[in-house]
């Protein structure tokens, strides 16, 4: 008797569950926490900092502009991390690209300058990729070494001096120009995010990256050339970093070895916040975009709230740990 009556109240409870519970049950917590977090932080800042101009168009565009370059680096990083590798050399690649482009523009003109800058990405990406894919050296070590090498070369050849860029076309196209009120940087990052998102989610290559990252052996048995995949993700990351270097150069109208220094950590944080698994196999470029935006949002809000940079660092660190910890379990 009792066994037939007990399930009843339970069933009644599920059918009458409030709407928010049904929405919550459809959310994949691990994947979607970034969007929830973004909305929560945005609303909190809008309420608390509305008077300080947080919601003004200028401020919101500022946030977009300030996160644009990190977003581009982080899109490349998403592929690398989804493939269960890491790239610590991206910041240095950006710096080395900026000085190379600046010096080449001064010596040979606009187009050779752009080509020379991007060539840095090709060369460093090919070296990173070969060492990781063919010699099977852990990417952490390869790119940690490359971080030092690229930064060192950039500082060495310029003797630490900034290299001014006087070519106005370059500066306008890469970072300093606007289209209407929309900063050119934001357009660059929008294009990169769109391409990255489609490739990771919809192209065969993206599927191969995820498969290789989740289970290399299984991917190989499915006919995927996992070495080529590993090589190409390292290449993509270096190329994205190289583009970021050109944008630094254009926005700051100079090349300098410090441009991009430390960006690898911000980019990795954005990727992980965005729901890409550090162990590989799961990744989202749109998530990465929101990860970068969330960090930009927090920086901006904390500045408006009048916190100094040391306090900002502490709070940023706490938020990252919180977000990643929350995303671990359902």
């Amino acid at each position, binding site marked *: 008797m009792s066994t037939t009556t007990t399930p009843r109240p339970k069933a009644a409870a599920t059918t009458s569950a409030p709407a928010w519970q049904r929405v919550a049950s459809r959310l994949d917590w691990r994947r979607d926490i970034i969007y929830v977090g973004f909305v929560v932080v945005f609303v909190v800042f809008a309420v608390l900092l509305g008077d300080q101009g947080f919601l003004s168009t200028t401020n919101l565009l500022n946030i977009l502009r300030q996160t644009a370059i990190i977003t581009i680096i982080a899109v490349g990083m998403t592929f690398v991390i989804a493939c269960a590798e890491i790239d610590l050399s991206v910041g240095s690649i950006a710096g080395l690209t900026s000085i190379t482009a600046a010096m080449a523009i001064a010596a040979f003109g606009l187009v050779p300058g752009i080509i020379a800058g991007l060539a840095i990405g090709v060369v460093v990406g090919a070296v990173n990729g070969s060492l990781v894919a063919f010699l099977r050296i852990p990417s952490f070590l390869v790119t940690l070494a490359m971080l030092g090498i690229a930064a060192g070369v950039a500082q060495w050849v310029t003797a630490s001096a900034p290299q001014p860029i006087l070519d106005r076309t370059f500066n306008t196209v890469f970072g300093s120009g606007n289209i209407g009120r929309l900063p050119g940087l934001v357009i660059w990052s929008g294009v990169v995010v769109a391409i990255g998102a489609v490739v990771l989610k919809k*192209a065969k290559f993206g599927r191969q990256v995820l498969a290789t990252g989740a289970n290399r052996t299984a991917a190989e048995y499915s006919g995927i050339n996992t070495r080529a995949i590993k090589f190409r993700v390292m290449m993509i990351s270096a190329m994205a970093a190289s583009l970021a270097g050109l944008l630094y150069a254009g926005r700051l109208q100079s090349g300098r070895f410090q441009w991009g220094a430390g960006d690898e950590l911000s980019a990795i944080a954005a990727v992980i916040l965005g729901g890409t698994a550090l162990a590989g196999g799961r990744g989202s470029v749109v998530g990465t975009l929101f990860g970068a935006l969330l960090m930009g949002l927090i920086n901006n809000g904390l500045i408006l709230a009048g916190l100094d940079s040391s306090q900002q660092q502490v709070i940023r660190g706490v938020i990252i740990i919180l977000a990643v910890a929350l995303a671990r379990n359902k």
Partner: protein
Amino acid sequence: MPTDAPLAVRMDGITKAFHGVTVLEDVHLDIRPGEVHALAGGNGAGKSTLMKILQGVYQRDAGVVEVFGRPLDATTIEGARAAGIGMVFQEFSLISTLTVAQNIFLDVEPTRAGLIDDKAMRSRAAELLARIDVAIDPAAEVGDLPTAQWQLTEIAKALGQDARVLIMDEPTASLAKHEVEALFELVGRLKEQGIAIIYISHRMDEVYRIADRITILRNGKNLITAGLDEITPQEIVAGIAGRELSDAESPAPARGGATGPVILDVADLHAAGVEGATFQVRAGEVVGIAGLMGSGRTELARALFGISRITRGTVMKDGSRVRLDSPADAINAGIALIPEDRRLQGLVLDHSVRENLTLPLLDGLRRRGLVAKDMVRDRSDRLIEQFSIAVARPDAPARLLSGGNQQKIVIAKWLGTEPEVLVMDEPTAGVDVGTKTEIVRIVRELAQTGKGIIVISSEYPELIAMCDRFLIMRNGRVVETIGAERVASEVELELAVQGLAA
């Protein structure tokens, strides 16, 4: 067979050697379309090498392979796959973070305008799953599915690539009973569709249930190919297990039952993969646990050593109940485990022989809180001598030693803790004949000093040579206990494991 239809697979004169050691010699194998063909043989008989040649993983040294009448000269997995060879892997080859549909079409995704057409992929996967009558949601993420569905997904994946020959290697090892039924029904449907299945299994009941013919390999050569209506289980078991006794072994001397006190009393033990194990071990007794893969042997060892949680039942040691929540508890209770995979679980390969030998003993080798080098040296020298480990430099990394010597280090390491109960999981796997004999001798000697020893092994000659009693495990339970005096040969032991009367 009076038919013009070509064979699904014809392998003839296959020969393969690794580093000068011949593992396959002039082997032939014929598989008819729509046939389930069992492939059997003991460890090292050459089954997996033969299958890897068919899959294009290994290159044959000589011989021909034809698939549906066409010569297969594929030297790659892709080439064999294109010819219609599909493999259902024992170690699953699925990507856990992708969906069922994405896995089925991994690397052969349908595209539209250059981009993956996920919608078409899902509906094609659903069609495929419906065709083989398997109820799995193609949009489900594989990592969220139970293992049985992984396997069905794996089969669907092979079929999605137009496999007409499926190789299944011990497919039921990790399945529960009703899941096995579902798999067999699927195999039946595949047969009707003309798909040939090569079925590797050690389980006679399964082989008789679904296979049409069987080929038995022994020592890299064909022993027999027969229809299952022409051969008895006893003949098959004799064919698999009845290899020549290694010259180092002589049949077990008749041993009287050990009369020491009961030191380990296990009652109705439940843990992951173990569903009720009851047995006793006496001081001075060697108890062998025999069972097929997936029968719960290794799982029992893990539970006794506190690695997997005991969910029900009791373990009594010297008459008092012990808690086994961690390996540390087990060591304190006087239980030691010599694990199955010595390279992974038994040794720190890059550490020196001395460091490995004294790792579980460090507590007793300290002076003023720090590890005392001279005590480590003395202790390890004693162990090296006691177990006659052939080691030129005790300070050299353990990885440089032979498999046999590594195994002796693992045994010595645990005996250093002076356990009263020693659980050994596959102690003679992958060691040379000489070391096997020595391990058998060491085990017997340890028993004589009053220790209780549990040996899990799928190498029956060694098991017979060292044990006083055998526990037969099946489906996580101890189903039978047999005294050594009742087991005269490996064949008899194998029959007991298979649940067949001699």
